C-alpha cells in the first residue's frame, strides 16, 4: 500500500478549473519532485492533499486513512503531514526553539521539557542549534527555511510536502536548504517537493512529475525524464528551467 494516494483531484476557483483530475501515489521513503509552469496548480494540489484547500472532487489517503473523509479527524492527520512553505511562515512572535516545539506541546501534548529536547534534536539536524534564541526576523531566509523544516520534522510526520522551498531565497542561500533536504531524502523521509531545482531532482528524486494546466502531463524517473521525455512539452519545459535555474546543488 502506498503511503500517499491522491485520486482524481479537482479544484475550481470561480470559472477557472485549476486542477482537472490529478492522481498520484507515493511510496514510503520515496521523494517525488513536481515541476510545471507558474499557475498550473502545483501549490493548489499540495494544499488539497493536506486539506488546507479542500478539493471539490477526488479523494486522498494517507497511509490508508482517508484524509478527504468528512468524518476524519483532519487535525490529527495534518499533524502527520509536514508542510514547508515557500515563504517559511515561521511564527514571528516565537523564537527558533519555540517555533519548533510549539506543535509538540500544543498539538501532541508533549511536556515542555521533553518538547524542548526533541526540538533541539531537530535543530541540530538542520544545523541551527546555535540559534535557538533568535527570532525569525533575526535569521536569514535560508536559516528561516531550515527552521521551518525542523518544525515540520519535530512532529515526526509520515510525509513532508514542500512548496517551492527555495524560490524565495537569494541564490547564495539556496544551497544550505537543499543540502538539508537532500540529507532528509537520503535518510528515508517521504517527500513530495514542488521545485525547479533540477540539481536536487537529479540527486534524490525517485520520480519527477510534470504538471501543466491542472493535469499531470508526464511522470517518470529522472533519467528517463531528462534523457527521453515522451511528451514534447516535458522536454521543452525541462530545458527552459535548466537554463533559468541552472543546476545549483
Amino acid at each position: 500500500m502506498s503511503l500517499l494516494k491522491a485520486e482524481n483531484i479537482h479544484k475550481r476557483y470561480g470559472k477557472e478549473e485549476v486542477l482537472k483530475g490529478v492522481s498520484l501515489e507515493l511510496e514510503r521513503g520515496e521523494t517525488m519532485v513536481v515541476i510545471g509552469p507558474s499557475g498550473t496548480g502545483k501549490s493548489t494540489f499540495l494544499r488539497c492533499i493536506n486539506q488546507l484547500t479542500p478539493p471539490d472532487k477526488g479523494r486522498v489517503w494517507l497511509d490508508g486513512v482517508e484524509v478527504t473523509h468528512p468524518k476524519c479527524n483532519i487535525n490529527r492527520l495534518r499533524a502527520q503531514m509536514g508542510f514547508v512553505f515557500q515563504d517559511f511562515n515561521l511564527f514571528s512572535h516565537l523564537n527558533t526553539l519555540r517555533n519548533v516545539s510549539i506543535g509538540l506541546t500544543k498539538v501532541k501534548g508533549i511536556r515542555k521539557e521533553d518538547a524542548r529536547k526533541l526540538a533541539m534534536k531537530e535543530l541540530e539536524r538542520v544545523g541551527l542549534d546555535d540559534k535557538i534564541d533568535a527570532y525569525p526576523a533575526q535569521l536569514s531566509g535560508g536559516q528561516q527555511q531550515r527552521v521551518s523544516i525542523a518544525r515540520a520534522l519535530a512532529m515526526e510526520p509520515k510525509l513532508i510536502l514542500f512548496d517551492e522551498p527555495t524560490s524565495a531565497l537569494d541564490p547564495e542561500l539556496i544551497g544550505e536548504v537543499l543540502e538539508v533536504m537532500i540529507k532528509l531524502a537520503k535518510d528515508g523521509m517521504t517527500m513530495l517537493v514542488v521545485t525547479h531545482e533540477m540539481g536536487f531532482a537529479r540527486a534524490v528524486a525517485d520520480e519527477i512529475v510534470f504538471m501543466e494546466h491542472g493535469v499531470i502531463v508526464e511522470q517518470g524517473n529522472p533519467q528517463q525524464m531528462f534523457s527521453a521525455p515522451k511528451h514534447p512539452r516535458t522536454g521543452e519545459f525541462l530545458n527552459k528551467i535548466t537554463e533559468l535555474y541552472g543546476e545549483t546543488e
Partner: protein
Amino acid sequence: MLLRATLINIELLFALLFLGLLLGTVVALLQVYGGRFAGTLAAGYAWVFRSIPALVLLFLFYFGPSQFGVNIPPFIAATLALGIRSSAYQSQIFRGAIQAIPQGQMMAARSMGMSRLQGIITIIIPQALRLSLAGWSNEFSSVVKDTTLAYVVGLNEVLRHARIIMDRHYELAMLAYLAVAVIFFVLTYSGNRSLGWLEGRLRIPGLQMKGGTQNK
C-alpha cells in the same frame, strides 16, 4: 479633595478599559472569524456604539433602566456606557491588527495540526495584541478624558468636585479647573509612557511592523 476624586476617575478608567478590552477582543474575533452571521452582528455592534455620543450613552444607561424601576449606581452605569463604547473602538483597533497578520501564520498553524481555535489563541492573539498597542495608546488618551463625562450621571469624579469648588468659592474656579487640567495631563502622559514602555518590552526582536505592514 480633587486628588481623592481623581481616584474615582482612575477606577472608572480601569473598569471601562477592562470591559472594553474584553468585549472588544470578542467582537473583533467574531468579526474576523465568526462567519457571516456573527461577523455582521459584530460589525453592527461596533458601528452602532461608535456613532452614539458618549453623553447620550451615559444618559441611556443611567436613566434608561430607572424608567423600568431598576436603579443602577452611577459608577456601574458609567462603566457600562463608556466601556461598551470603548469596546467598539477597541474592537476596530484589534480587528485591524488581526488582519495585518499575514495569512501564512494561520496556514502554518493549521498545517501542523492545530485547530482554528488553537491557532487563534496561540498564534494570532499574541501577535495581534502587540500590534494593537500603538492604537491602544490613542484609545487610552481619549477614554481618560471621557471619564469626566460621568459627572452628568452624578458620579463624584474630579470634574464634579471642581464644579462644587466653584459653586462655593467662585474666586477659586480658575484654579480648580487648572488643577483638573494638570491632573489629566499627568494621567495621559504617564499612561502613554507606560504603554510605550510595554510596547518596547514586548517588541519582537528584529521585527519591523509599521501600520500593519510587515517588512522582511
